[in-house]
């Protein structure tokens, strides 16, 4: 590994951790006051989960001589991240934005594009030379990502019922969708790090980090607009 590769390797580990931790702290500060919506608190917890998973990777890089393959707790951090995003939209918001009438049927179908795209992203993982246990671990993460992406995309494209929820939260949902895809691309790149190099991984990690911050800011802005 060259010096540049080493720098990129640590950048790819540290920057997403700091960004997600920053997003989590920002969320705790602004969304955990009494009377704030659970939706916001659940999204904040998603960033906490991601930060914990990233901390695991970071500690692993620092302490272990070789990064072990197969299942690690960091995958649970990622699965938790997607499940929290999914729970926020499915459990808290979906009932408000979709009244189950046939008028919204087309949006329910259009939203399927996102999970299908996520599923297609798994193909490079199957073709990579990862251990079968790693591939199986990633399946669970991919399923969680498919669930969260469906609702993020649905809430990004669905028309507003007139309450203003959808319009206010739309930028957040678009950001969360980009965040989901960036995270999955990162996993594909890590799986093929011998071919693509650490510079690209570091760059995509930086994109992810920026998107983490933008997502939580978009959420706060959306909530403020929603109140008005």
């Amino acid at each position, binding site marked *: 590994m060259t010096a540049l590769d080493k720098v990129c390797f640590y950048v790819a580990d540290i920057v997403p951790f700091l960004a997600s931790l920053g997003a989590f702290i920002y969320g705790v500060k602004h969304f955990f006051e009494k009377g704030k919506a*659970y939706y916001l*608190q*659940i999204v904040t*917890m*998603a960033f*906490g*989960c991601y930060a*914990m*998973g990233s*901390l*695991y990777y970071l*500690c*692993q890089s*620092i*302490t*272990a001589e070789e990064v*072990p393959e*197969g*299942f*690690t*707790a*960091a995958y*649970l*951090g990622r*699965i*938790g991240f997607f*499940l*929290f995003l*999914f*729970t926020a939209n*499915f*459990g*808290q918001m979906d009932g408000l934005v979709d009244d189950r009438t046939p008028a919204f049927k087309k949006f329910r179908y259009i939203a399927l594009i996102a999970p299908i795209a996520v599923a297609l992203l798994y193909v490079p993982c199957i073709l990579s030379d990862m251990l079968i246990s790693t591939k199986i671990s990633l399946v669970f993460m991919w399923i969680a990502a498919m669930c969260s992406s469906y609702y993020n995309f649905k809430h990004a494209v669905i028309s507003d019922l007139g309450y203003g929820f959808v319009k206010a939260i739309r930028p957040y949902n678009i950001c969360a969708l980009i965040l989901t895809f960036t995270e999955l691309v990162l996993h594909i790149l890590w799986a093929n790090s011998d071919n693509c190099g650490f510079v690209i991984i570091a760059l995509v990690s930086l994109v992810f980090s920026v998107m983490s911050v933008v997502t939580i800011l978009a959420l706060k802005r959306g909530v403020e607009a929603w109140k008005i």
Partner: protein
Amino acid sequence: MENLIYILFVCITIPLALMACLIDKKPRRIVIFFIIGICSAVFASEVNGILTYLIPLDVFDFTVRVTPITEEIIKAIPVLFFAKEISNKKETLITVSLAVGIGFAVMENTYILTQNIEYVSMLWAIMRGFGTGIMHGMCTFLVGTGFVFANKNKKLFVVGTFALLSLAITYHSVFNMLVQSDLRYVGASLPIVTYVPFVLLIYKNRKKRSVSK
């Protein structure tokens, strides 16, 4: 000595169980869930013992990848049962979850102490007390507190609980990894770093409540 964990279990739980019969409802609940935490530790040690035969990993990998999962699930079961069937009040659930976590940590620390009696020191005790003790308490506290929200909506229940467990398991794994590496002091201080903001937050809320009264 064989069955040492059961000997310790009997020694610790009998006086606690007898005491629980004599005290009021609120402290009794704490003592009972403390005992349940101890039972969880014994059960977890048996499950981990079986898994060591089934999953061929070295001690480091096993404690980083497997034990956090088994221990967090086993600790969460009584808390989830209490929240679902008995009471979902935030204050009660926080108390119960902390009691289970600390009971678990006490039993684990005591057992590990007896296994390493030649090597233990005051520094070891401080690290175990501030590190493992608080870590177990914090993980169960996290699941218990989060479950107050997850239990409010049927749609949130399963996925929310799984997500909370994921968070607790990852936290536990990071701690286990650090305390077994050269960064063991950083690892031992991790629970304190997370514990202090929670304490400050709880005191701030209590102060707010007392002012509003």
